[in-house]
């Protein structure tokens, strides 16, 4: 018979406490008295439950802390909402990653401090060059984290709005030459002017970023639809203007004549208002480290 009586869980077995010499303490509210052994078991179980609660909540909140103390801003894909709204709305599915033709979008890991599983772009490694023409990542996003049109209740930060829809140079002759973007994801800035080849009046010959660089770029002269490796495209320019040459957005950057502090005339890349922060200039800059970088989430200041 004992063989057949397995349907007792171990907890039921504990119900049957050994015969107790001490009288059971009476409990209030007419609850049945509980044995000491059972009470001990219950207490341990409560402690374990509290421990698990603490553990899981601790882990969950530790995933939240890097965001509170975020030191480093990361460049989000085009059409991203402002950082806080972006983090709240991103469902972390990676559909934006899947549609990007140049694999510019990566998903953040535990220690990146920008939210586990959220997408970001590291433009120095692979910039968004709008090879997809239509900003596919925005179309793929199921929650509106990446969007053409912000919902009404989300304000546009001053300077984040683009004065006009950016014109994609690759589509300039098309009927609809614009990218349907209304806000920039960042702004390029000449962070190390002293290293800039254009300012030094130098040219550039060879492979920008070297033969091992894996980044891709759409070269209209090679193929309208297929981005190729930057390392397969050598340059030979008398005065370096790679950032201007490869910028996909019309009027975002140009080489201008500027006056150096000593009064002499110099050539220098100058960033203009249409800059959306795609990061192509940062990717192609031939000096190491790059002298032009995109500041994520930065707005246009005159």
């Amino acid at each position, binding site marked *: 018979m004992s063989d*057949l009586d397995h349907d007792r869980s171990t907890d039921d077995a504990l119900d049957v406490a050994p015969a107790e010499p001490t009288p059971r303490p009476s409990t209030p509210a007419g609850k049945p008295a509980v044995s000491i052994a059972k009470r001990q078991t219950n207490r341990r179980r409560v402690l374990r439950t509290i421990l*698990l*609660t603490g553990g899981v909540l601790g882990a969950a909140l530790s*995933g939240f802390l890097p965001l509170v103390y975020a030191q480093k801003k990361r460049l989000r894909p085009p059409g991203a909402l402002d950082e806080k709204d972006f983090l709240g709305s991103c469902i972390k599915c990676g559909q934006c990653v899947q549609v990007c033709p140049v694999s510019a979008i990566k998903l953040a890991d535990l220690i990146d401090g920008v939210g586990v599983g959220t997408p970001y772009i590291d433009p120095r490694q692979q910039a968004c060059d709008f090879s997809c023409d239509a900003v596919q990542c925005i179309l793929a996003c*199921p929650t509106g984290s990446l969007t053409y049109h912000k919902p009404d209740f989300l304000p546009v930060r001053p300077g984040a709005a683009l004065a006009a829809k950016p014109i994609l140079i690759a589509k300039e002759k098309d009927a609809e030459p614009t990218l349907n973007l209304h806000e920039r994801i960042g702004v390029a800035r000449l962070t190390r002017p002293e290293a800039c080849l254009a300012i030094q009046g130098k040219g550039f010959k060879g492979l920008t970023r070297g033969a091992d660089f894996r980044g891709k770029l759409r070269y209209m002269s090679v193929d309208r639809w297929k981005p190729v490796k930057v390392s397969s495209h050598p340059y030979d320019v008398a005065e370096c203007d790679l950032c201007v040459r490869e910028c996909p957005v019309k009027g975002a950057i140009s080489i201008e004549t500027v006056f150096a502090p000593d009064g002499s005339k110099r050539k220098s890349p100058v960033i203009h208002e249409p800059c959306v922060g795609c990061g192509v200039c940062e990717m192609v800059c031939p000096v190491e480290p790059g002298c032009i970088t995109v500041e994520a989430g930065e707005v246009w200041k005159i």
Partner: protein
Amino acid sequence: MSALLKRRFVDQIKVMFGAEPSKPKEISPAAQQIHFYKKGNRDLIAENLHARAHAGHSNKWRNRRWATLIFANLLFTLSFFLDIQILEGALTASRFVGFHLIDLNSALQVMLAHKHIINNLLIGTGTVLVLWVLLGGRTFCSWVCPYHLLAEWAEKIHLYLAKKKLVTDQTMDRRLRTVFWAIFALLALATGYTVYEAISPTGILSRALIYGPGLALLWVLALLFFEVFFSRRAWCRYACPIGLTYGVVGIVSPVRIIYKLDACFHEGDCRKVCLVPHVLDTVIKGRAVEKEVPIGPDCTRCGLCVDTCPTGSLSFEVKGLSKLA
């Protein structure tokens, strides 16, 4: 449905939220009769021993389930890896040949955090809702969730170690899962950030399978370690809010496991293999209120009990349809 089964149904829902299963106060005369004849019936016991001795253990449902689970997750991986675009995205949100599918709990977290719902989110949530209402809510857990498979293997190790008396199962209060559900919902609402998604092993594993492994897998390993050495199936049983969300969705689902009292000999083998043994309290001797009792909404429809039952008392049923057959 009889009044007794209705009452039992309400109890089953309470059990899903963490209540302890209780002995029924009233049992139908037909079921009472069966219970009575089972008491001390030597012939029945002999028959039972015979049935057990001759019962071949089947892995039919387990194999089908593992195949489905691996296929679903592989389809995600291959869709991206080979760029065949059948099932794009990850388990949190995806598109199946263009149809939006969005995990209900992830969608809920996003809606609470962002407080704004766009059409695609609504469509995807609707599709998944209809799918899992039909299939049975927690079917997702055992038939799709990649963490479930790992936890199932971890559970095997745990049971082996427990048999060797190297570990003991430290049980916890099952109401904790409901508490976690509420905490994570409130955290999403208050912080405006999907706090749960950072530690969701389902999301982490799904992304790791599709986009490559990351350090976040350490958390999944920690959970598995905890389950192997301390508490059997702790995450699925006491913590995971995804399971509860799907459980609630599946309350009215037509696909379920049905228990037939007259064939059962109360060996309790089913309760030993079950991830959620509290849903099988009906099989305990003297508990069934009717001759046939459907198993409650917390059941993951994994089919392990169906495979294990030596007398065939537990089987899959589609409400309404099985009467047609």
